[in-house]
């Protein structure tokens, strides 16, 4: 529509454009309202939007005190998450970026790390119990990382009652552990970083901190740099900003390449002439399959995911990437439809899944979100597919970028489900029907971890049981609960 751009309903692309011109505050407001109106939805777009926004936010901040920056990001994050709690990618990205900031600060300020994180003490479980998580399932404090705590205790001699100091161990630990932790795009192999081995011992160790002359273990001594003067700090702050921005840029790049990275491992998972079942129009899955298609011939059975995604699914099958993700972001993701690559694609209604499952060798799913315990949320119908697969002992492979991994532990799966527009099930026009009959249209399904055979992330494959570690590597304990008041 030529002249009509004024009236145009906003989307990710328009948002990103508006970022350049808008004031920060209104950009935040805008994104929040876009999320609320579901005008930006599905993990990838949310992730991109959030990252872009925070990039702006950080760029605009004048950083006096790094803690300010952290608080600022937290605050923005809180607002975004509140806008649409069920798009967890938003929260994930915010946490990742917070991680970047903390890391930068620590590597900058060395021991200041403790200082910078001290205010965030309350995030430790001891205090958290008194606070209400934003959406109550975000009982997110629960990541295994959190009890890799306390070792560094001896490094921050701090008076205080056992309680609150034991609390602060969490942060202290995390901070000091950080520098050892590789960049956020790190691979899972870094799982057990040395200081964590203290976890259980912390129970005993703490008092060392209070002992008169707690000389630290030698291997830690390098960190015993004396507290810098504030002037020093300020000097360093300058490049903190720069580094953080770089960090976010990295993150954005990761989001760009994530599908390609996942696709790289395609050939390790798909062999010749197998029959693969998939559903919805996930860009990740499509890339994955088409990569495999270059080398191997196989058959794809595609369930159409009625009533929410079928149109876009059809589009994907017919025309490949161009239109698939609706009017969303960059022109980058545009790929040929599988059929063009010589792959036979059989489109079936979701109902036929069970009937065909006995002839399928692999089910490939793309989640909406992956949860800390290895279970996942995916487009409605996924649980039926996964269950049918289990009944026929067909492996279920889940392709998920790390940005979809959420530290959230699913207490109440019901709360995670978004209910969509019943008008997609029964047209609104049918007055009698719609007024007398409850029509519901859940958008997501909860798929239990035990139904998933394998996760393939951009860091490689792993079993659902090991997911907790990858999650732990990417999120800081003190950030998992964004609603926690800091300082």
């Amino acid at each position, binding site marked *: 529509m030529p002249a009509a751009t004024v009236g145009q309903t906003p989307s990710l692309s328009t948002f990103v454009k508006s970022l350049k011109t808008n004031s920060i505050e209104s950009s935040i407001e805008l994104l929040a309202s876009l999320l609320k109106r579901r005008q930006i939805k599905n993990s990838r777009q949310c992730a991109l939007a959030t990252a872009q926004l925070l990039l702006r936010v950080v760029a605009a901040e004048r950083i006096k005190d790094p803690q300010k920056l952290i608080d600022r990001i937290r605050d923005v994050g809180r607002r975004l998450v509140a806008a649409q709690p069920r798009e967890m990618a938003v929260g994930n990205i915010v946490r990742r970026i917070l991680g970047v900031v903390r890391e930068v600060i620590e590597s900058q300020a060395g021991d200041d790390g403790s200082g910078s994180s001290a205010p965030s003490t309350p995030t430790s479980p001891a205090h958290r119990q008194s606070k209400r998580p934003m959406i109550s399932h975000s009982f997110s404090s629960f990541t295994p990382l959190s009890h890799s705590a306390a070792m560094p205790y001896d490094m921050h001699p701090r008076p205080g009652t056992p309680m609150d100091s034991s609390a602060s161990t969490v942060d202290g630990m995390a901070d000091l552990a950080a520098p050892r932790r590789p960049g956020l795009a790190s691979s899972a192999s870094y799982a057990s970083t040395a200081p964590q081995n203290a976890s259980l011992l912390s129970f005993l160790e703490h008092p060392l901190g209070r002992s008169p002359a707690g000389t630290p273990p030698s291997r830690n001594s390098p960190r015993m740099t004396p507290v810098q003067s504030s002037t020093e700090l300020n000097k360093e702050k300058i490049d903190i900003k720069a580094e953080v921005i770089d960090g976010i840029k990295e993150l954005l790049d990761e989001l760009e390449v994530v599908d390609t990275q996942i696709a790289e491992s395609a050939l390790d998972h798909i062999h010749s002439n197998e029959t693969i079942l998939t559903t919805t129009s996930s860009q990740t899955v499509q890339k994955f399959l088409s990569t495999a298609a270059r080398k191997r011939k196989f058959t794809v059975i595609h369930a*159409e*995911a*009625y*009533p*929410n995604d*079928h*149109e876009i699914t*059809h*589009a994907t*099958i*017919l*025309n490949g990437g*161009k*239109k698939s993700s609706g009017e969303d972001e960059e022109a980058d993701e545009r790929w040929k*439809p599988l*059929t063009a690559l*010589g*792959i*036979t*694609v*059989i*489109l*079936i*209604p*979701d*109902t*036929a*899944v*069970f*009937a*065909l499952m*006995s*002839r399928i060798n692999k089910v490939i799913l793309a989640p909406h979100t992956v949860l800390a315990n290895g279970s996942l949320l995916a*487009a*409605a*119908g996924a*649980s*039926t597919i996964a*269950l*049918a697969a289990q*009944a026929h002992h067909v492996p279920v492979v889940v392709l998920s970028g790390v940005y979809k991994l959420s530290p959230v532990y699913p207490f109440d799966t019901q709360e995670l*489900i978004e209910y969509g527009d019943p008008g*997609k*099930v*029964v*047209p609104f*026009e*049918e007055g*009698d*029907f719609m007024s*007398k*009959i*409850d*029509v*519901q*249209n*859940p958008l997501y*399904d*909860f798929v239990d971890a035990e139904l998933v055979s394998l996760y393939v992330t951009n860091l490689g494959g792993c079993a659902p049981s090991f997911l907790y570690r990858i999650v732990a590597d990417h999120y800081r304990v003190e950030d998992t609960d964004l609603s926690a008041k800091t300082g």
Partner: protein
Amino acid sequence: MSTVAPEVTAPSAEDQKISPAELKKRAKAEKQARRAAQKDQKPEDEAQSAEPQSAAATAPGVNGEMKAHETPASALQQQQPKAEKPQKAQPPKLSKQGSQEAEPHHKRTGSQAQQMPLRRRPSQTGPPTKVAPKKESKQVELFSHLYTQPRRHTIEGVSKDVHPAVLALGFQISSYEICGSSARCVAMLLAFEEAIQDYTTPAGASLARHLTAHYLSPQIEFLKSCRSISESMGNAIRWLKKLIVEIDPSTPEQEAKDELCERIEVFIRERITITDQAIAASASNQIKNGSVVLTYAKSSIVEKTILEAHAKGTKFRVIVVDSRPLFEGKQLATSLMHAGLEIEYLPFSAISHAVKQATVVLLGAHSMLSNGRLQSRIGTASVAMQAAKRDIPVIVCCESVKFSGKVALDSIVLNEIAPAEELLLPTRSTPSKPAPKDGDEEAEAKPKALSDWKEIPRLQLLNLMYDVTPAEYIRMVICEYGSLPPSSVPVVHRLANEGM
């Protein structure tokens, strides 16, 4: 799984009278036509009956048309069989003509008429013209054994022996106007009744021998060509043949025919009508106060059951899960809604949410297989599976006439493939919306629309009719012989369908 003829084209009241009544009325009119025709054509008849179909196909083709038009018999005679030959040469033209004829024919069958033809149109023009060359590439190899010749929606090339009533029925079936195992069965028997009444044993042949072999079988063939016949129909036919053979040759023809019709009536009543009530009665006891009944698509028995329970004053909720492309559940929901029940209507994708609330699952059947598995509308298996996982009792309501001697492990060997075009249905708009409209909607939405899937190499659409539910998901089967575990289906089958 759907209703008996009357309710079949359910939503609107008028066709309730129509379908059966229509059948009769039309038959009446056509009877004369046919009588006349046969008189004049006797000689040809003899000749062709010897010849194979192909030869026969020409003249009868005319017969068929003529009957659909109900043009007076004399009109037929004007046209020469030869004259047809060239026409038959170019199928497309013929088919077009055919579809045109099919439509006025549908029109007469009541409200559904407006939508049925439209809904059908793709497959009507489709099979003969476009698909014919490409078909190989468009068939899913896995199911190649199921791709019979495309369903018949036109009457060209129909054997002239096919009785008008049967002819009419054939089209109603192929267009889902009459849909559902028992419904089709009943309709078929009714049609046969008329056919038999119009039957005259040719000189020198005994009714018992000739009727089945030379008269009934073409009818059956025709029905098969319209849509592969259901288990219940099979059973009924088997029973009928047995019956005919048993007729004492000495009995005078008319008497014998009346006898047959008499027995058919009885069969319908005993094996289906009464049975349904019996089943509904016992199944409705499974619905308690406060229970939440989950059902899938549409089954006449389940519907009866629910209404029965409601009539008893039981307070309960119903969850109807529905699926593309037939949206049968919508009919069910609507009719239950009018009965004033509290209903929740969910798309297939929401099963997992549906079973969370459900306390009992009621399913209808296309047929019960002898290894205790349930063959029913595609998707049923998934529902049963989800329910079984949550340990919710899954109950199948099924007349014994649907019990089958066959066994099947998966849904692939035994199944039926519906025209893929059905999947092109407009999804956001009411079924009544014409299919072509949907076409352009999609077209403007994206460069290639699903509607031109045939042009896209290596893209296939698969539209199965049934799937097979493993026995372990089924807690109970309710038939007129009472409630039984799936394992004892064969027992009842012997008793009911072979025992007599």
